């Protein structure tokens, strides 16, 4: 397994370089270093000299990816792309355009993002799987029918509607929890109830239907008939046998997102005033802060790759037939 993991990590390197290159290209197609300088310096009294100085101080006065003025390897290394990208491979994210340390920002913003994403993920997994099993238990009855109708209805509504509607009803009309805000520690709970609830409701429809499909597929298999023939009760069949055998597709969807939970949610964090990484990314895009955008995309890619590796490893845990080599 170790050799497999090492191989996957090595595969990740060209992927990350590719991701960096694509991010870099997309960003600089839309923004030039001059635009970035103007965004930071303002437009009122900024002089061409000030723009040049800003670019020089941050290394944006160099060619983007190829430096004709240099010789040999320096043609590649003495460029914006190389200088801004390579340090990230040792997780040195550098400084944002406003001078703040990006690594420090990421550290301080991870927890608020996780405070919402983790409960939504864990509770969601429990609730959606239970609900899906319930629908499968009552398959082809009116409970199943109305359950699916409810799921489709939940899927059809925009997440923005849940957020605004939830804030309106629960916070504004019923005065039960704060509309938005955040506190550290135990005080966070009252701020998290609403976004977590909305997060759970928002994903309930699609997730439940997905798990229901997985379980229904398992229900048609021979081992289920065998289990029933042995006289096992339906709930034992479902929770002990079907659930275990359905773990592989469940893990495929679930484990891969675990590392990415740190990255937070763009919309929820923005509306609920949660100072997480989702809102950090949005702010960076709006202010054309390339170092932050680049760092967040890189981090997202790394976490996604870690998620994929974890998924592969988790297969071996739930299915002894699978060996990683």
């Amino acid at each position, binding site marked *: 397994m170790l050799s497999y993991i090492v191989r996957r990590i090595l595969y990740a390197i060209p992927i990350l370089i590719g991701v960096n290159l694509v991010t870099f290209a997309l960003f600089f197609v839309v923004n*030039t270093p001059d635009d970035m300088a103007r965004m930071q310096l303002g437009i009122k009294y900024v002089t061409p000299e000030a723009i040049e*100085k800003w670019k020089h101080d941050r290394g944006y006065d160099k060619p983007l990816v190829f430096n004709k003025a240099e010789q040999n390897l320096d043609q590649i290394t003495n460029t914006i792309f190389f200088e801004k990208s390579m340090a990230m491979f040792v997780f040195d994210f550098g400084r944002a355009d406003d001078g703040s340390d990006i690594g420090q920002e990421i550290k301080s913003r991870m927890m608020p993002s996780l405070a919402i994403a983790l409960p939504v993920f864990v509770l969601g997994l429990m609730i959606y799987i239970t609900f899906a099993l319930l629908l499968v238990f009552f398959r082809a009855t009116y409970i199943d029918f109305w359950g699916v109708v409810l799921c489709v209805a939940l899927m059809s509504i925009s997440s923005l509607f849940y957020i605004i509607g939830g804030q309106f009803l629960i916070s504004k009309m019923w005065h039960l929890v704060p509309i938005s*805000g955040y506190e550290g520690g135990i005080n966070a709970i009252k701020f998290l109830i609403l976004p977590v609830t909305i997060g759970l409701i928002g994903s309930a429809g699609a997730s439940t239907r997905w798990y229901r499909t997985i379980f229904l597929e398992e229900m048609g298999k021979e081992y289920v008939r065998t289990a029933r023939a042995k006289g096992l009760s339906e709930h034992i069949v479902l929770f002990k046998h079907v659930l275990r055998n359905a773990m592989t597709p469940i893990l495929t969807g679930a484990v891969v997102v675990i590392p990415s939970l740190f990255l937070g949610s763009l919309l929820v964090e923005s*509306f609920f005033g949660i100072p997480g990484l989702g809102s950090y990314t949005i702010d960076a895009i709006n202010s054309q802060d390339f170092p932050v955008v680049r760092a967040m995309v890189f981090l997202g890619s790394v976490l996604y790759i870690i998620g994929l590796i974890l998924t592969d490893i988790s297969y071996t845990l739930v299915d002894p037939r699978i060996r990683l080599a």
Partner: protein
Amino acid sequence: MKIDARTLGFLILYAALLFGCSETSWNSPYQAEDARENILYNVFSERPKHLDPVQSYSSNEIQFTAQIYQPPLQYHYLKRPFMLIPSTAVKMPSVLYFDHNGNQLLNHTRAEEIAYSIYEISIKPGILYQPHPAFAVNEHGQWLYHKLDEEESLSVNKLSDFLHTGTRELTAADYVYQIKRLAHPNVHSPIYGLMADYIVGLNKYADVLKKARDALQEGEFYLDLDKYVLEGAQVIDRYTYQVKINGKYPQFNYWLAMPFFAPIPREADIFYSQKKLIDKNITLDFYPVGTGPYMLTDDNPNLRMVLERNPNFHDEFYPSEGMPGDKENGLLDDAGKPLPFIDKVIFTREKESIPHWNKFLQGYYDTSGIGSDSFDQAVQLVGQGEAVVTDVMAEQGIRLETAVAVSTYYMGFNMLDPVIGWGDEQSRESARKLRQAISIAVDYEEFISIFANGRGIPAQSPLPPGIPGYRDGKEGVNSVVYDWVDGEPQRKSIEVAKALLAEAGYPNGTDQETGAPLVLYFDVTARSSEDRSRQDWMRKQFEKLNIQLVVRSTDYNRFQDKIRKGNAQIFEWGWHADYPDAENFLFLLHGPQRKVGNNSGNSANNAANYDSAEYNQLFEQMKNMENGPERQQIIDEMIDILRNDAPWLWGYHPKNYGLYHAWYQNIKPNRMSNNNIKYYKIDAALRERQRKEWNEPVLWPLALIILVLGLSFVPAITGFRRRESSTGVRVIS
């Protein structure tokens, strides 16, 4: 039964958490112990990037820095037009003028004879800095935190982690130090380019500092500015300093009221130049050090910024004089009382307008602006268009304060454009008439009504009300666009515009030489659906003259690029005053400051590239004059030239509407000064009573949801039991 017990458990936990947290309402976003405290609750939407006063310029930064730092001058809170008064200065700066030989000149000497001016500023003794670790010393008088070792730095993650603080008296050297910082190679002051033209030697000083910075050893970050002399800023004695300015620049006094010229203690620069602190974002950009009424005690720009009363601040008092009506409005009730009134200001970050608005209505924010989507809920127009709060707002005790901003939003014509701009001698007159015709056709009264909910006044010139040089009433009307009828301006009829268009060579919107319809191009940065509505509206305005308007929408970067290169034809832009002087608006049309072909190396703000020799000459004359009848006459002449040439559609001056709760007092909108929080007052007891009254938790929906959820489990449980107890044969069948 099992499910019921769990549900009950969750409910108990939930209730315990909520009740446990609060003597206050369940939906309160604040700590219960703060409920009756003398705290102002405010909002910021954009993260401030720079709190270093040499760099911060945008409004979301100045709202913090202006409370913390004290430049030598400030604006009078109540008097209008805006008036400068001393802040830390003993009196207004004395200005002496000199010729090239160093001979002192009389005050009324012509500007062109003045080689340089010397501003001498004396500050009050006894002013102390806020408590700060940069000033902390041990028993031997040695700095505690100027050279942090590894162990000390490990325990520090934010400024409040330092156990010891100190203070010291403000001196003139701190002001000089900050002026030197304008040229610091490691910071990017937005006004460096401008000030390098005025402060003697600042340009050269920047070169000196750059060399000194480059000579620093690796790992060394502190550049001792005191080692290098700046000719334009000199300390005279402990409480007096001089600034030497090239030529005459009367507007310099206004700059002395901005945080760029606030004091920075050398100790703070040394303290914040430690790499160990820089790596933890503990810098002057995050943690200001000032002498003002407040100090920043919680700096989390992602969530919350907290200002608390500076315990060392003293000897500033609420103004005793104001304008007529201020006394009646209770604005002089606190005359002579020591400032500030509020102990703490909590700024919470709200990126979205909906939560902001709802929390204001719940009493959790003390003030709010009005978004277009909540305008009808908040404001109604009565009588002759007077805006008042709606009955619902009035019942809550919310009041409305309005003020015309010292800003202007205009539509510019690129004067380099062959169709609509200066053109050659032959086409100049026709292009001018074309611009005048468009000026009449685009109905800004309607624009303000539709797109700004009436919050604005149509502009008659670049100058907004409140700026010396602005004229009100009949004298101030743009006679090219308006007639004066029954005591008010009335836009000329579209027939007048059509006649002008015909004279311009485009009868009924058709080029009389080629027979082709007249097509003009409007460059915009469109983002929202409202922007598209505005463009449609603008097309219709041009259609009144049968002119086809083609909208060219682009992103802001490309838009700026077009303007810089003179590739736009018609565009929209705006300007907010840096200081209340006509020069700060009229320079937007000063020829040498045009965007295209400006070789001075300075920043250029004349986006229309307007360049009239007559106007330029008058501008040069006007800019160095003191306000008075003579200057007013020149301004009038300049504005007449502009109106006639019509390089802009003068657009409108926005009107700011602010809503304030009943407990929020001493409010008089002042769009020039930013250090106003020290004048505000809060009735915290009233606020807490109102909050409780407005935010009683409504529990029946919660009970109903639980009941519905509970009932929905009944058929499931019943079905489950039936299935589980049924026989295998029945299941299969």
